[in-house]
């Protein structure tokens, strides 16, 4: 196993990259379907059915990326897995209960007696909110180095709100892509209402990370790194501006550019994610444990890597197939 240099160096890096990719895919994919849940109270009953129909075939696979991400953390960085998850014990529990409530609501709202549908709609909304808020809270705590202080709690509470609104934005962008007519016009309105969450969220994370850690500050503002990194915030700002212009013109009469807000949201999430990854590298537990210290034994990582290289392209392939099968505007869900 010395073909590519020291596996104790490149294996942890590879797995950190794989984990980062899973988290990014998760945040985008489950982000839009959580966002649809967050927007639920603003919709009429028939629109609710259509909204669920737009995510029904995907949500389960979307959540699997979370399992993969947490799985990689678990298998590749076991020491970090314990440290992070025990520090985030309560928000994790709230997120899990949220995921349970919303996950089962997909099936129950269609199969339970009609009189109960309102209850399952509530379960879907509450579950989506619990999940989004707790994920935002965990993001904030992670940026704060998992320190438990009133100031870090306050920051985490802010990121909780921002991420939830950010999810509602990408959810609205998804609905602009997947729906038509009155609901699509409504979704444009929701996107306009949610864009501030995205902006403030990006801003809060970008400002707080360097302020909390002098190490991260130096990484961003030392020369010449600052020059190479400058495009990251500049492109983000440009994308936000384009998004704002687009939202004022959507929906177009021939439905052109309906994909634009969703595509730009993905780009923004990806850019923000790269920025964070750059900030925190090489740490997996901020300022405490690097990916190299936390990594499992190389021989175990190697056997997972072989499987991953073989299977991940297949997963991406049939995920793409599924999005292709269910392409176009969402239609009413039926087993027929």
């Amino acid at each position, binding site marked *: 196993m010395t073909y590519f240099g020291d596996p104790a160096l490149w294996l942890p890096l590879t797995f950190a990259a794989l984990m980062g990719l899973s988290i990014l895919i998760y945040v985008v994919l489950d982000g839009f379907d959580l966002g649809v849940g967050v927007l639920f109270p603003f919709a009429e009953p028939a629109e609710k059915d259509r909204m669920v129909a737009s995510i029904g075939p995907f949500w*389960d696979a979307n959540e699997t990326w979370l*399992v993969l991400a947490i799985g990689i953390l678990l298998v590749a960085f076991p020491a970090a897995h314990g440290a992070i998850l025990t520090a985030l014990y309560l928000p994790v529990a709230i997120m899990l209960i949220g995921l349970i409530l919303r996950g089962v609501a997909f099936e129950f709202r269609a199969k339970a007696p009609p009189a109960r549908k309102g209850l399952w709609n509530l379960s879907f909304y509450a579950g989506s909110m619990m999940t989004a808020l707790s994920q935002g809270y965990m993001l904030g705590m992670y940026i704060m180095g998992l320190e438990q202080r009133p100031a870090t709690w306050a920051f985490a509470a802010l990121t909780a709100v921002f991420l939830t609104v950010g999810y509602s934005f990408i959810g609205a962008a998804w609905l602009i892509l997947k729906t038509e007519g009155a609901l699509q016009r409504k979704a444009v309105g929701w996107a306009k209402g949610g864009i501030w969450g995205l902006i403030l969220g990006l801003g809060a994370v970008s400002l707080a990370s360097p302020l909390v850690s002098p190490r991260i500050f130096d990484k961003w503002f030392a020369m010449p790194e600052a020059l190479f990194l400058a495009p990251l915030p500049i492109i983000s700002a440009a994308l936000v501006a384009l998004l704002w212009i687009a939202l004022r013109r959507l929906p177009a009469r021939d439905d052109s550019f309906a994909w634009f807000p969703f595509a730009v949201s993905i780009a923004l999430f990806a850019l923000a994610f790269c920025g964070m990854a750059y900030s925190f590298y090489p740490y997996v537990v901020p300022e405490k444990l690097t990916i190299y210290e936390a990594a499992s*034994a190389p021989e*175990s990582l190697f056997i997972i890597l072989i499987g991953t290289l073989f299977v991940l392209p297949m997963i991406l392939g049939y995920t793409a197939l599924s999005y292709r099968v269910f392409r176009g505007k969402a239609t009413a869900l039926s087993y027929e």
Partner: protein
Amino acid sequence: MDTLLLSRIQFGANISFHILFPTITIALGWMLLAFKLAWQRTGNEKWMEAYRFWVKVFALSFGMGVVSGITMSFQFGTNWPGFMEAVGNIAGPLLAYEVLTAFFLEAVFLGIMLFGASRVPVWMHTLATFLVAFGTTMSAFWILVLNSWMHTPAGFEMRDGVAHATDWLAIIFNPSMPYRLTHMLLASGLTVAFLIAGVSALRWLWGDRSDAVRATLRTGVFVGAALIPLQILAGDFHGLNTLEHQPAKVAAMEGNWETRGNVPLLLFAVPDEAARENRFEIGIPNGASLILKHHAAGVVPGLNDFVGEDGSVMHPPVAPVFYSFRVMVGTGFAMLFLSWGAAILMTRRRAGVEGLPRPVLWAMVPMALSGWVATLAGWYTTEIGRQPWLVTGVLNTEQAVAAVPAPMVATTLIAYLTVYAALLIAYIGAILYLARKAAHGDRPETTTPRGQPMAAHVPGE
């Protein structure tokens, strides 16, 4: 209560809730594929009707399994960090392979299976159904490999308190894996057989005389009757395997305190761990020796062999293992009598479902959940029987628990239990509602998926 006990209750509650649903989906996936293929082969609409009813139950069960499974993947870290720190090099790759080869497959193709019938050709819909069934079974395979390895670890060496893999084939095909996997897959088949029979019987009792309900009732009874003898045999082999590798567990299952021959098979007793004896014993003389050693004088290990000189107890808590085992075996025999009785009544004079008297049909209704009872009891037997070890001979359960304050574990435990209780009621309620709706003629209209002209199948008749 302390963090260890609370964490154990919490994980036990989660995994108990979780296993209910994979136990259904593993076999129901294959059953759905069989219904679909039967329809494609015969063109008989009853099979498609059966498919349409049971795919709803499948979707409901699958959703419940997914969300409770996600919970468990997190609890390894939140409650049992010591587990992955000690044996992560083994458990990690096995879990990773489960996610990669099973979870994505089932999740993606479930979407196509449930909602894609009108969007893809028939062959692809059938393929999606197959891949979902295959995915659930792969998932069962990997998780049972890991679970079996925790019972009978092999193919590793310990370096500085951390397990390192030395032989992956030995890890995967560890001594108890083939037995446990067979036992669990059969358990899933039986759970689904009795669920289908019970729900179909209920629909019949509610006046549903459709061909579909006849077909599923027959299928449930005959699949159950075919699998239960195999399961009793597989269970016996599994027991012998346990005797070889985990004698303390067998001693607890038999309630046998002293290592000796001519051990009776206890039908009932109240094990008293403080006094280290049983009260109110009712047993069949030499029974346990005969089953485990195949002769009356066969020596069966006793619990007292697993007490250290310093009084440290290295065998599992006796009463829960002893009782769980009896619940499992008792339920298994109830399944045997009901399915064989019903099968005989149905074949006699070719009477079919009409040959079943109402009391038999009514007996089938509560037995719809017999698979759940037996599966849970079986898992309690084997998992509590593994204590005090988390990984036999390698890691104590106590060493793996997280230092989370007990009140926090207690709070989340209450939250989980509340949610699980509510969901269980809602789940059973939804199945009853679907059954009532189907029984009262509100069946989905019979349409044909795209590209599947019915006439193409009729000539085969």
